[in-house]
């Protein structure tokens, strides 16, 4: 029987300079393996030219990636999985970040990495879409923020502001 419960294996966010900004693993791997995969993959994706297709075969997985301003969003899915819907998973995540931070840029994710993780967990769990409604995800995050003592997001003003993802 073919294995049909396909799911995302991991998601990586990295900059054009190859700096990892966020990593989410949905399969158990050792730290060493994770580092190796990250290194190889960042290299492979950065070497690709702008107009190339957003999918590539890598090991026995398929990589789906898209660049938003200075940041690459890159997901590994199984060979039989749906590439286009994964591309839109990436986009929806970017929309969520954008809505939450307001014109999100790479720096928001660097300085508020924990928030980026929380938003991702509300949207994707175990490598599967949990809630695809933008409103519902943001509502959940806002509710959590209300429980916070001080509602606070660090918006770095002392650094030159970066290009936002322009949605």
């Amino acid at each position, binding site marked *: 029987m073919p294995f049909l419960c396909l799911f995302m294996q991991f998601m990586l966010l990295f900059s054009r300079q190859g700096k990892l900004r966020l990593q989410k693993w949905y399969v158990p791997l050792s730290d060493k393996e994770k580092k190796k995969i990250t290194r190889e993959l960042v290299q492979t994706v950065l070497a690709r030219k702008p107009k190339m297709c957003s999918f590539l075969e890598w090991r026995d997985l398929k990589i789906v990636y898209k660049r938003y301003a200075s940041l690459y969003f890159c997901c590994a899915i199984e060979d039989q999985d749906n590439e286009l819907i994964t591309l839109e998973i990436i986009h929806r995540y970017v929309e969520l970040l954008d809505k939450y931070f307001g014109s999100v840029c790479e720096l928001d994710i660097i300085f508020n990495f*924990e928030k980026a993780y929380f938003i991702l967990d509300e949207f994707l769990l175990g490598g599967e879409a949990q809630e695809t409604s933008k409103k519902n995800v943001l509502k959940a995050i806002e509710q959590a923020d209300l429980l*916070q003592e001080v509602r606070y997001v*660090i918006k770095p003003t002392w650094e030159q502001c970066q290009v936002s993802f322009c949605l």
Partner: protein
Amino acid sequence: MPAVSKGDGMRGLAVFISDIRNCKSKEAEVKRINKELANIRSKFKGDKALDGYSKKKYVCKLLFIFLLGHDIDFGHMEAVNLLSSNKYTEKQIGYLFISVLVNSNSDLIRLINNAIKNDLTSRNPTFMNLALHCIANVGSREMAEAFASEIPRILVAGDTMDSVKQSAALCLLRLNRTSPDLVPMGEWTARVVHLLNDQHLGVVTAATSLITTLAQKNPDDFKTSVSLAVARLSRIVTSASIDLQDYTYYFVAAPWLSVKLLRLLQSYPPPEDAALRSRLTECLETILNKAQEPPKSKKVQHSNAKNAVLFEAIALIIHHDSEPTLLVRACNQLGQFLQHRETNLRYLALESMCTLASSEFSHEAVKTHMETVINALKTERDVSVRQRAVDLLYAMCDRSNAKQIVAEMLSYLETADYSIREEIVLKVAILAEKYAVDYTWYVDTILNLIRIAGDYVSEEVWYRVIQIVINRDDVQGYAAKTVFEALQAPACHENLVKVGGYILGEFGNLIAGDSRSSPLVQFNLLHSKFHLCSVPTRALLLSAYIKFINLFPEVKATIQDVLRSDSQLRNADVELQQRAVEYLRLSCIASTDILATVLEEMPPFPERESSILAKLKKKKGPGKLPDMDDSRRSVNGSTEHSENTDTTNKGSTHSFTDVLNLNSTPSSGASLLIDVFSESSAPPAAIDVSEENFPRFVCKNNGVIYENQLLQIGLKSEYRQNLGRMYVFYGNKTSTQFLSFSSSSPPQLNVHPKAADPMIEGGAQMQQILNIECVSDFRDAPVLNIQFRYGGTLQNIAVKLPVMLNKFFQPTEMMSQDFFQRWKQLGAPQQEVQKIFKAKHPMDTEVTKAKILGFGVALLDGVDPNPANFVGAGVIHTKTTQVGCLLRLEPNMQAQMYRLTLRTSRDSVSQRLCELLSDQF
């Protein structure tokens, strides 16, 4: 949204991150980090108890440092403490640290589990979600043990909040993935299936993933999900785009849920219920229709989401493989995408068409796009797209287009990216072999491969060409001539030297008559390459030289001189030196007769699956190759499943019809056999199959299998490993002719009859040869159908041919100790079959021995402590596997009974062998 820089939150963290970013060098960064680590360590160890806020801040810094790629070996305890804080943000950071940094075998897991348990029972949905996210993120076995039975309860409880249900569903999915044995199935399954009807689309989205996973494990328990999924899908695809509110994504209704539902349906065969089936067909048609509508938005998100659903629908159509119209529509739709301006769509169309090519309904439709695909190969700028084009050409290749496709692949190979050259080489080699009608083309193709991409031609490929040339005498002369010519090139690839050396060594004599390729010219040509080659090739060439000495006595002296030279006899390489010494000696002392015997032409290789295919499969992973099987995927989903598993399990198996069998093309498996015989041989009407003599042949190979007033059929057969040859003698017992005589057998076991004469004179005998190949273990014997005209009436006779599984036995001798060790290894209940039965014949030891030997196994003496018992061992050879078999027969003279015990690694084999043998005594 959130305000900017308000309050003093975790300013320390922000400052630290800024510091790191301002570091000018890697060293400065490491220095700053080490300073921070020392600071945090001292804070954690200090006497002063830290407040929750500081703990949170430091844990967060550690997390940041870890995410930069540094190792973190402390702080876990502090993070666990944060879990039990009742301040949300502290708890949240604690959980984040655990999710990212704690591996499953941590000794803190008990503490963590305790904290999770508290949050799960807190009835605070936000806390429950945090706990569930943590379980889903870590997913360790310990967590499964602790919570696998609790989560289903949360999932189906009436008062659980929707968001908690969503988390619980996916949390359970993750646990089922890591520890399926711990996730209990039971009374809650029906209620989980019912979540597909939930009002909240988010709940349905999460539940669909869970149900798809669980349905893999227990398809029957979740069968009812099919009708619910179809109903849900139907409502989505027919809804107006605003109906689903926030679940509409760029004018596409619930694309994620649609994809998931379509995937769930791929776990099942097409619905049997006609109404349900037509409703599903309507859905799929609607999705295909929408693809033709003008886009509702110019945004790429709109077309991506729409096409994501479309591609998943096509995947379902291919999976069902039962609606020719849908399959052809799908193919046409993909055909449009082949020329789309979006690279992504072209890529996906090529990929999806690959699977369509393997359906008998759409194979021809796919072939109509060949020119477009060839064009893609030449013009696509992205190597990953070109790779897909190569895959598709491979999948759509059949006898009708093989020459063109192979030629295009060869020409692409000249400029192909290095990363995919090896794969293309393998594919070309396979196609050339599989569809070779004339083997000169095959030889040319492989030599071209070596010329164009010699570095990427693996051993498997050049071994294979040699095997084929050796096994087919009609191509040997051509091969010798061709390699001789190819070797003339001033620079030729070492692989060509290997093939050339081997082939000239074997068949150089076939072209030696021509003075331009006289023995000496051949030798000089080969030897001119010698010094440029690596050690293994030189060794091969030395063997070719000694073969030359046998083939051509006139060059003996020249070659002996070469062997005698210091560079050979004193070569630093042991292997080369040894060969030179031995070959020289052999050529000096052996008589011509001995030399001729020792250096005789290589015997034909046993028929076997091409090792190239195995290599390609290994490279691509099982199941990733489009099935090139005779059985283009058959009608409905369920049988297809079993076939797929078959091919995956056995790795590289019957999917490759070995050309050496001279088998037919995949699509016309049966028809060729019929073509061979007279055109009138329509399948005879149902007649009784004669099998009365069948049992007599279980333990012997020769005898009369059938006889009536007109005709006698005798058999002589011989078997070696998985191959057999049967001589069938038809004796005409009358004094008049049999006219329009024909015999045919169904293509089970790959039985290949050679044509029989259409006429047998009165009183004469005619012989026919059947070549038999055992592909995998089997029960039913092939039936020989015979038709002829005698005295104006058509006679129809059907005889069951005594081809039984035990014919493919190779006896195995072994010592007592080995026997018992293996006997124990085969101890699983289904591996053993035992039968107690009454003796039908006098119980004679010598006769019994003869029968067991005739059965095909080796009789092992001194194994059984009781000398009256018989013990045997053997291996059944099939093309796909070998099955070891041990047997024991215990006679009981007093009771006139026998007890037969058989153990093999495969239950079907044990069963069949026991039936066959127990009938013999």
